[in-house]
């Protein structure tokens, strides 16, 4: 089962002792089957909240407004039972640290069998055969042997391959990879990027890659949303974001990545200032306090969402459509 995903005017607040933290404000994103969507931003930008909202895993103190429509179903207003069904079969999550995704006292094989509990039509040996095929597909050579090992016996890269295999075993329509390579060394990172790229050829659902690493996003994604302090500030095709960015934050973020400069810089570029306090977000543009070209309305008026091309948008006063 595949279908489109669309979040409309999605806002998430966390009620805490120190007031309500507006972690996500008026987020609009959409994704279609066969696409790889990138969500990029620095810490505190709300990308983890967005992921947990999409995966229906928000904690109890979260208040959600707006809608997340997946395959014609609004996930926000779903009852608990159907939500659980959807989470198991339709939406799969690959997290940053695959060690925590597995139970340390069971073998990988046993856990992967359990992940298929919704497939009542298969018996244990058929499930095992599926696992072996899937492990081979994610590049694990001695699948039969590896199924007998425990999570701690595997290296980080191997565990991440296992986590991807586990996610794909449920035939999800939506695969969310949250910082899939952050815990890995650069040679393993390249291999996981390579693997995800190969998998998407045969996979026809939606892949959402969340990362703070611009290189990973550039290597993997078709479309990208740039987030800052709980808002999507710019979105568009990957080439437009990396070569024709309009929002000042996107430009500053790109300019900060030392990987973009082959020659030695005497000073590394930075973004001065700090994130706004999300318990009382500013009235105008969320980026106004750090922006290098603030205009008259930036401090008081919420910037409009300017449509720059068919799918390139930027939320800024200084941009014309």
């Amino acid at each position: 089962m595949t279908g489109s995903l669309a979040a409309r005017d999605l806002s998430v607040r966390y009620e805490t002792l120190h007031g309500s933290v507006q972690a996500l404000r008026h987020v609009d994103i959409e994704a279609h089957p066969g696409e790889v969507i990138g969500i990029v931003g620095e810490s505190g930008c709300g990308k983890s909240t967005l992921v947990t909202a999409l995966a229906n895993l928000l904690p109890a103190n979260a208040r959600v407004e707006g809608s997340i429509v997946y395959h014609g179903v609004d996930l926000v207003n779903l009852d608990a039972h159907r939500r659980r069904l959807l989470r198991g079969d339709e939406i799969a999550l690959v997290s940053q640290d695959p060690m925590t995704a597995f139970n340390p006292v069971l073998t990988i094989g046993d856990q992967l069998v359990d992940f298929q509990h919704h497939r009542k039509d298969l018996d244990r040996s058929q499930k095992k055969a599926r696992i072996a095929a899937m492990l081979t597909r994610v590049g694990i050579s001695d699948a039969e042997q590896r199924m007998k090992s425990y999570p701690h016996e595997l290296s980080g890269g191997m565990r991440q391959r296992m986590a991807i295999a586990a996610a794909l075993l449920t035939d999800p329509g939506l695969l969310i990879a949250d910082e899939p390579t952050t815990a890995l060394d650069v040679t393993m990172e390249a291999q996981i990027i390579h693997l995800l790229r190969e998998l998407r050829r045969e996979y026809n659902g939606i892949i959402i890659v969340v990362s703070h690493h611009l290189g990973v996003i550039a290597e993997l994604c078709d479309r990208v949303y740039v987030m800052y302090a709980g808002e999507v500030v710019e979105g568009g095709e990957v080439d437009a974001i990396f070569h024709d960015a309009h929002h000042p934050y996107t430009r500053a973020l790109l300019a900060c990545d030392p990987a973009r400069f082959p020659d030695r810089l005497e000073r590394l570029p930075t973004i001065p200032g700090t994130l706004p306090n999300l318990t009382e977000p500013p009235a105008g543009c969320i980026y106004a306090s750090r922006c290098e070209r603030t205009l008259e309305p930036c401090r008081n008026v919420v910037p409009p969402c300017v449509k720059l091309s068919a799918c390139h948008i930027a939320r800024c006063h200084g941009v014309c459509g």
Partner: protein
Amino acid sequence: MTPLLEIEELAVTFARGGLINRLLNPLPLPSFNILDGVTLSVMPGETIGLVGESGSGKTTLARTILGLVRAAAGQIVFEGRDVVTQADFRAMRRKSSMMFQDPVASLSPRLRIGTLLTEPQIIQGRPMPDRRAAAKALLAQVGLPASFVDRFPHELSGGQARRVGVARALAMKPNLLLADEPTAGLDVSVQGDVLNLVGELQREQGFAAMIVTHNLAMIRHVSDRLAIMYLGRLVETGPTQEVFAAPKHPYTATLIRSEPVPDPRQRSYHLAVSGEIPSVFRRPSGCEFHTRCPLVQPRCRLEPPAYRRAGANRMVRCHYPLETCDQEKEDFARASENKGN
């Protein structure tokens, strides 16, 4: 100019099995080299980047230099003097300092920032009439507001805690700064801040720095020389710009090529290296990189290569070092094509 620090054939071994195992086994248990034959020198005022993946021994090397880990063999010479006994190390540590990977965890959690900043001077018995004023001066030096003296480490953000780490490391005006992953866990917009700060203070005070990292994109801009480690051995050293422009060791080349490029127009579809880093408990025979090397030759599997000179200021541990930039690209393209077929 004489080097500030010289390391010669340094080795760190680790014996597997505890006391009981050793008593029960009549044969001596095999020991494992975490570091082996590391030879490296650091000139006064220069910045050297120590690069490697996890398990390459780069953090162990930094800790061995400062005497936190005991070396099984080799020599450390600091400012022309052999460092052998604990007293030697203590003398050396007074002229060097270390920045830890996790800045919050390296600050004693129940002490205030002001106390932590002035502790080095107190320990070394330097007179300090006004501790608070001294702490505020140090905070100002790293661009933090004076009110931070009363904060606790957990009340700081990652970037702020790094700045406190810098202030603490440089409070004693060291000649050598060892920084272990100084940008780990920091956003790109903040990591530049910390590195610029260290760079500025380095220009002011003239200390040498050794930066331990796996972040190639960052180290390229802040180091003068690079030392690449693999499985506890140095495989290549040389001036940073030269190494990036024309790596000699295939491992260095694969590291550079593996780094994802933040430009969708330059996607690389050829996997530079496959397989995983072997464990130090099962070191491969011959050249240790042969299990993953795309340009492996029969000789590599049998004979360990020597660490030898390869051009001015450059050293490499490889039987068949890459000659030029172009050759490297061609060879890699051919190797990956062969694999694909």
